[in-house]
């Protein structure tokens, strides 16, 4: 094989990594290099150093160690049967790219994933070696996210969690059946077992609670995450969200990422030719937030069809379906009820509750508290405001849905 330059390898192996949505670099252990003996800092809120024209942020050097792979997952550009160009980085190349990019303030750290070469253990061992070299040899204190390889050995997982801030393993599909159909070599049970292992290790590394709450975990301090591909199989949104809520409850995941299936060069025949609308991905994230921070249950989201409304965000859609629960009086309602008002975020609700103690909350105060009144207006009562007939109006939905486009006249 021809020897590739570093630039060629970077081009191939970052192109191959772009279908992973995660770019988080926040949370975890606080570190810095003020002592002058190392490089980097981490633990605050993450920073997006650039944005690509696809609207996604670039926060980490997101690359594959290699895109050679013995697995044949239909949705993946790097599957064994694909004729994509292949390359492989050496440990030193990844380390040097990470450090040089980091020193120039291009990135927050490294997100390393890999195709599976020879065996899961061999692959994982190489990835762990990269993380170790960065930490021990380069004194790198920036962020490291390692994608763990299913069914790699326990010792390698132990070491990976010691060097990395975050570990992740992709669940890939909304159901076990889809996974075995599209990724015959992967096992949903094996993937869930890996997540369980990470959770147990994180808990074991906390060394007991302190007076001020839980100690941060030393093992993968920034937690674990996963990704599910949307639109490659026939699963509806409720199935996807049901899986997510079960994963959040079971393994303490920091995030589930939803990646709208993107038609890739050389698509395998098992896949649909058309991509799902990107807005579906967006609605899933919104619904995911409602599940985690707004007290919604899976059964409440998605209406009768099990699919999220693409035109209206899920919270407004829910409110329109449950008009009998509105208007909500901002001066009296419980936190739970306030959280259900479209246009009120968790911060706004916190501010309303605080302001209520000082005196009557008036309509004109709400904007300064962060409420989006355009959305909230029909659903609330506040000092000096009542929605009157707005809530019953037939046309209420039309306020939120995008304007229908008029057909061109011939």
């Amino acid at each position: 094989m021809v020897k590739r330059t570093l630039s060629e390898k970077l081009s191939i192996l970052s192109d191959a990594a772009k279908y992973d949505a995660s770019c988080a670099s926040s949370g975890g252990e606080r570190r810095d290099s003020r002592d002058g003996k190392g490089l980097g800092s981490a633990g605050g809120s993450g920073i997006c150093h650039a944005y690509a024209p696809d609207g996604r942020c670039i926060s980490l050097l997101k690359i594959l160690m290699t895109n050679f792979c013995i697995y044949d997952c239909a949705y993946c550009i790097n599957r064994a049967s694909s004729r994509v160009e292949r390359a492989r980085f050496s440990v030193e190349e990844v380390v040097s790219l990470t450090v040089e990019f980091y020193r120039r303030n291009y990135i927050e750290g490294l997100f390393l994933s890999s195709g599976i070469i020879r065996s899961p253990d061999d692959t994982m061992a190489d990835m762990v070696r990269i993380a170790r070299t960065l930490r021990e040899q380069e004194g790198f204190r920036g962020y490291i996210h390692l994608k763990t390889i299913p069914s790699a050995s326990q010792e390698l997982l132990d070491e990976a969690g010691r060097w990395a801030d975050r570990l992740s393993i992709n669940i890939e599909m909304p159901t076990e059946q889809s996974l075995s159909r599209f990724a015959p070599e992967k096992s949903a049970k094996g993937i869930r077992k890996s997540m369980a292992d990470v959770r147990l290790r994180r808990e074991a590394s906390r060394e007991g609670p302190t007076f001020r709450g839980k100690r941060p975990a030393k093992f993968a301090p920034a937690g674990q995450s996963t990704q599910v591909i949307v639109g490659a199989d026939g699963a509806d949104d409720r199935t996807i969200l049901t899986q997510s809520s079960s994963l959040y409850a079971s393994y303490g995941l920091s995030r589930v990422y939803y990646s709208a299936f993107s038609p890739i060069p050389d698509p395998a025949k098992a896949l649909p030719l058309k991509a799902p609308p990107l807005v579906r991905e967006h609605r899933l994230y919104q619904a995911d937030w409602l599940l985690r921070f707004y007290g919604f249950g899976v059964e409440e989201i998605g209406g009768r069809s099990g699919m999220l409304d693409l035109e209206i965000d899920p919270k407004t859609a829910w409110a329109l379906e449950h008009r009998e629960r509105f208007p909500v009086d901002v001066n009296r309602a419980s936190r739970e009820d306030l959280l259900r008002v479209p246009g009120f975020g968790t911060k706004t609700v916190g501010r309303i509750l605080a302001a209520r103690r000082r005196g009557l909350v008036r309509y004109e105060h709400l904007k300064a508290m962060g409420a989006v009144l355009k959305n909230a207006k029909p659903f609330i009562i506040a000092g000096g405001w009542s929605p009157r007939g707005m809530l019953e109006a037939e046309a209420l939905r039309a306020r939120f849905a995008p304007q229908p486009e008029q057909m061109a006249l011939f």
Partner: protein
Amino acid sequence: MRQVILPRVHTVAAWRREARALAAEGVPAEDVIWSVGEAPRDLFAGASGGGGRTGALPRTPEYLAREEGAGDRLRVSRKALDSIESALCHSDPERFGRGYRLVLRLSAGAVTWGDRADRDVRAVLEHAMAIGRDIHKMHAFVRFREVPADGPRRAFAAWFEPEHNCVERGTPFFAKRFGDMDWVIATPSVTARFEGGRLSFEETVSQQRPPEDATEDLWRTYYASIFNPARVMVKAMCAEMPKKYWKNLPEAELIPGLVRDAEARVREMAETAPASMPDRRTESLRETTRALLAEAEPQDALGRLNRQIGACARCGICAQATGAVPGEGPADAALMAVGEQPGDREDLAGRPFVGPAGQVFDREAQAAGLDRAAVYVTNAVKGFKFAPRGKRRIHQRPDAGEVAHCRWWLDLERQLVRPKLILGMGATAAEALTGSGRDIGRRRGRIEEASDGTPVLLTVHPSYLLRLPDRARAEAETERFRGDLAAAARIADSLA
């Protein structure tokens, strides 16, 4: 009318000093004209004459003494002061006057901090937020270029144009992050310099950018490759990376070309498909992988059974949980203990009886003289049934259908282990073993028979003991449970 001129570097610290001194003198906010760098032409400033100050403040001993004492009179919360000082970096010409006014008003109790209905508070909060955003963008978009170094530390330099003068507030972050190298961040007004671990600020002298760095080509390669042409969202990009920053970002020059060619690239992808390998080749690849990943078939019958249990999909429980939790213990155990179903801990660990209820069982077994290591422990239902609630899993009792499905596996397990006695703990185990889960309270301690005639001793599930709120009752029940375990040990011994 007083006129205060603040220096361009360390402006905020100087403002704080001046504000204290003015407050100590009792100067009202409307009597002060603030400016940075040089004196503005203000007709009224000179006209008021008298106490007006121009240029730097006199540093006489009595002035400094006044300044010291002033701290006692001005009382402002740390949070408020932090926001006010942050807002001072804003380019709004009114910022110093507003800050001084607000400090006086807050100190006098004329306004509460955080009251967004107040104009000054709101303006300060909004400005502080704008500065926060500006600093955040600075942390994101500064691009260092390597420059020749004098000593052993590598040296880097950057040119950056923030919207406001946030250099002094924004650069300590870089000192923490890039502690092992020397760097300079120059902006149109102030330059931050970090050398040998010391951060200092000075007025910017030269507006020159540092020369190009070879690594920028690699960075551009990365930027172009990580972009997915199948989803162009220029608006989303520009919202987060506004065009005003582009001129100092090495990657930004690629954007127009990437956007222009995206559609053609997607079309090309669709047209050049399909280019998979021929099916026969794919099949042989899969074959190799399968062989490589295949796990060895377990040698013992129980191991083979557990593997089958692991692949069971007769009900939906195991697909939601991590997986089936097999039984554990000697394959020829005289005593088999059967619980209800694995719980949260058991599911995570993949082993039975390791959670809170399992610990109760272990503890009481030891107290009852039952050799825990000699017991084969398993569950009536092999998967953990739960309802997700936030970050927790709430245990759900398996229904009759699920118990019946899993009974198949329990029966096979019994046939392989052939225990002399089975200890059934709780209603679900009783149901799976004897066909009825009713009246455990009455039936406990008695010996019944499983379908094949094996004696079954029934007792409560250890988790029941954990749920009893009344301490005396819990102790009494635990005592009875221990008694049942002791009986089980005795009977199993006598039958073995």
